[in-house]
């Protein structure tokens, strides 16, 4: 089930909210645990078992790590066992196809291809459960005393299928001690509305524009091709950050407070800056659980470069089981290395608009690597970006750009903190509820209209 669907908005959510607040406080976690499983199992109920299994062995893993806290060897053994099982399951369900395909390229091998469908959200919840065991091992988080509470944390529906990746230590206290308030609920509603608007009113439209333009790749011309990839740049940001906003908003409605996952990434002045603003929970995860354990920057420049490449290769691979994602990850790894060791000094002296331009250019090219999973299409795309031989702008592409111009402008403005700054200025005033309420009404009406119109509404981030 996705948040931006009629069933979620008008059946699951009202029932869940009503029941949640009717259930006495002690029962709320177990209620959430059950309702989460229904949410998760809606499309493919069998995969609930996999998730419950995952919750179970990580809970046990955490318990054992804690139990042998004084026995360094056993403690480490249980940590490694749990992590290997976590990564093993993720690898089987996510990367089997990719691995067999790669091995089959060898002339003497012919492994039959297994059709394993990717369980929704597995990349997200695996990372969450791993963070728990590692944190318990490092003594950064208390061991969970209750299987139900731990299960509620892993399967919490707001962040279950598309993040943010919430670390156990960030919500451990909230799991047992949260106090829901109307203030927080209202804040959650507003955040949810922002997210729903981003997803349905901007990202979906940008998605239509992207696929309309790339439906005819050879007729677009240079401007058309750029417009297509810029539309995709907007789509992926509004889709993903909209989803994160909805997740945080729903969390608020249930009394939780999650950390921010996006911080206006497209106004970054460098790639380093961009990755501090984009999918923050993921970069934090890799930094804490991979980069720093590998030695980070403490073991000399050579080792740091290797560490960065490992982290970014893995980051790419996390996004999808295809080589273009690894390429995309390494592309960022290389850019970050380049910035750290060479570019940083020069970049900082340049006027800020050039810094922005450089960053946006690199990011947009990056989304090209991300969008075209087929290597030959990817090659053609890069030629189309700079080859005026195909004309400046195809007729259809030009018409599409004109049709979507107002939305493209809205998307561009909404990618900057202008709106948030304006809101911060007036948010203390007495009549702030008027624009807030109007905003809710508009987003609710237009989103519902759009969702009724298009019953087809797949989420981009399900692939991960």
């Amino acid at each position: 089930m996705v948040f931006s669907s009629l069933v979620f908005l008008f059946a699951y959510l009202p029932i869940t909210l009503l029941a949640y607040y009717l259930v006495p406080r002690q029962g709320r976690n177990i209620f959430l645990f059950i309702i989460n499983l229904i949410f998760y199992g809606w499309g493919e109920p069998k995969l609930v078992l996999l998730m419950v299994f995952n919750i179970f062995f990580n809970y046990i893993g955490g318990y054992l790590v804690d139990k042998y806290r004084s026995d360094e060897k056993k403690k480490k053994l249980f940590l490694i066992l749990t992590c290997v099982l976590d990564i093993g399951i993720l690898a089987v369900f996510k990367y089997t196809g990719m691995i067999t395909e790669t091995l089959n390229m060898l002339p003497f091998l012919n492994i039959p291809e297994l059709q394993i469908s990717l369980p929704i959200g597995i990349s997200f919840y695996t990372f969450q459960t791993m963070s728990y065991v590692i944190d318990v091992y490092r003594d950064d988080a208390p061991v969970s005393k209750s299987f139900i509470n731990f299960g509620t944390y892993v399967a919490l529906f707001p962040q279950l299928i598309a993040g943010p990746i919430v670390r156990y230590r960030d919500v451990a206290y909230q799991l047992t001690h949260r106090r829901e308030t109307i203030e927080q609920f209202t804040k959650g509603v507003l955040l949810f509305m922002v997210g729903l608007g981003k997803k349905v009113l901007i990202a979906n439209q940008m998605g239509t524009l992207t696929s309309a333009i790339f439906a005819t790749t050879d007729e677009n011309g240079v401007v058309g091709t750029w417009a297509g990839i810029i539309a995709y740049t907007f789509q992926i940001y509004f889709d993903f950050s909209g989803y994160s906003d909805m997740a945080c908003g729903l969390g608020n409605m249930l009394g939780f407070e999650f950390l921010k996952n996006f911080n206006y990434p497209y106004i970054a002045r460098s790639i380093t800056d961009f990755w501090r603003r984009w999918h923050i929970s993921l970069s934090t995860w890799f930094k804490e659980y991979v980069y720093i354990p590998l030695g980070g920057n403490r073991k000399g420049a050579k080792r740091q470069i290797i560490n960065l490449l490992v982290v970014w290769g893995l980051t790419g691979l996390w996004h999808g089981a295809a080589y273009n994602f690894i390429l995309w990850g390494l592309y960022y790894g290389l850019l970050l290395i380049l910035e750290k060791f060479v570019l940083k000094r020069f970049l900082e002296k340049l006027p800020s608009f050039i810094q922005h331009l450089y960053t946006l250019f690199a990011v947009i090219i990056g989304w090209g690597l991300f969008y075209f999973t087929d290597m030959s299409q990817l090659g053609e795309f890069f030629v189309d970006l700079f080859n005026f031989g195909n004309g400046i702008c195809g007729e259809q592409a030009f018409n599409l750009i004109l049709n979507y111009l107002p939305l493209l402008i809205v998307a561009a403005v909404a990618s900057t903190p202008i709106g948030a700054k304006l809101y911060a200025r007036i948010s203390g005033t007495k009549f702030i509820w008027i624009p807030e309420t109007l905003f809710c009404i508009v987003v609710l009406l237009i989103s519902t209209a759009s969702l009724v119109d298009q019953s087809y509404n797949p989420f981009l981030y399900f692939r991960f």
Partner: protein
Amino acid sequence: MYSKDNSSKYFKYLPAFVFLIFIFGMAVWFLFNPKSEYSSAEKRYLSEFPKVSAESVLNGKFGTEFESYFADQFPSRSFWVGLNAYYNLDIGNNGANGVYNCKNGYLINKPVSTDNQIKKNTQAIIDFKNSVDTPVTAMFVPSTGYIAQDVLPSVHNEYNDDEYFESSSKAFAENGIDFVDLRQTFKDAYKSGSQLYYKTDHHWTTLGAYTAYNELCRQLDITPAPKDKFKVETYGGFYGTTYSTSGFWFTQPDNIEIWNNPENTDKNINVKITEGKNTEEYGSMYFYNHLKEDDKYPVFIDGNHALTEITNSNADGGTILLVKDSFSHSLVPFLAENYSKIILVDMRYYKSRVARIVKEENPERILFLYGIDNLATDTDLVWIN
């Protein structure tokens, strides 16, 4: 002063209140809203509440089907579709749903994709022609957007009818097929103020069909029935296909005209409709019961059927075989003035061999009549060979 502060304290929760009212309100409305079986605007049966069984729940079928049930039975669906349509129009995206909202109340389908079936279908007609001895004529109807250029929105995709007509007509000429090219005739008639197409439907009007009939007769060298032979009946409230797909509910309905020859009665007219093994006979080409519906176009020969045979014992000519789409429906009443027997085959539904009809009925001519937009998407015509 105190009370004022107090009220604003509660007003700040209004967004949450509105949100809850909305989602709970719609949920309750959904529960009590009578469910409908059929959507006439979409011409399809709506999903019903899915069967619950251990198996369907466990394999996820129930979840998926419940979602489509929920979307299909959502309260006041057409209101939401309309809101979405006008919202997209207002933010500058005319044609977001495949239909342009044009001047003078025209709702016109966007041009067909350049990657289409026209070449394949043209070749199918040629191949069929080469397999029979009967003379073959083809007539394609230009798309509304190509003829009514002046009403299109300023940002619109090009209608490539010229390219399609020229390549087909060249291929037909090389293979001895007469091609009735309606482009100039229609452009001239449109310029002189004739309404050749409906505003809310993709079909041509009865006047459009009559204009094409005249051109066809000229090329076949037969005398068309004069206009004054017909009594024009006009019916209002026609909401056609582009209306229902677009969601532009504020558009004015069309009038639909029936040009009725008063001399025709059930004494001389016989309409035989065959669908599968079932054949029914009627004494008129007009099926007035369809005027009760929003989409009134099936008033002509009862709409699409696999095989329709029209005989007119008053007509002098012989038999003509039409391989056609629905554009022909409003044209055959005119053609029936000339041919004593018209056999209409709709390849979308007719699954037997057309060559056998040719052999048995020995028609004096075979006419392929398609709207160019239909020809671009049709994947059934190729089965004629």
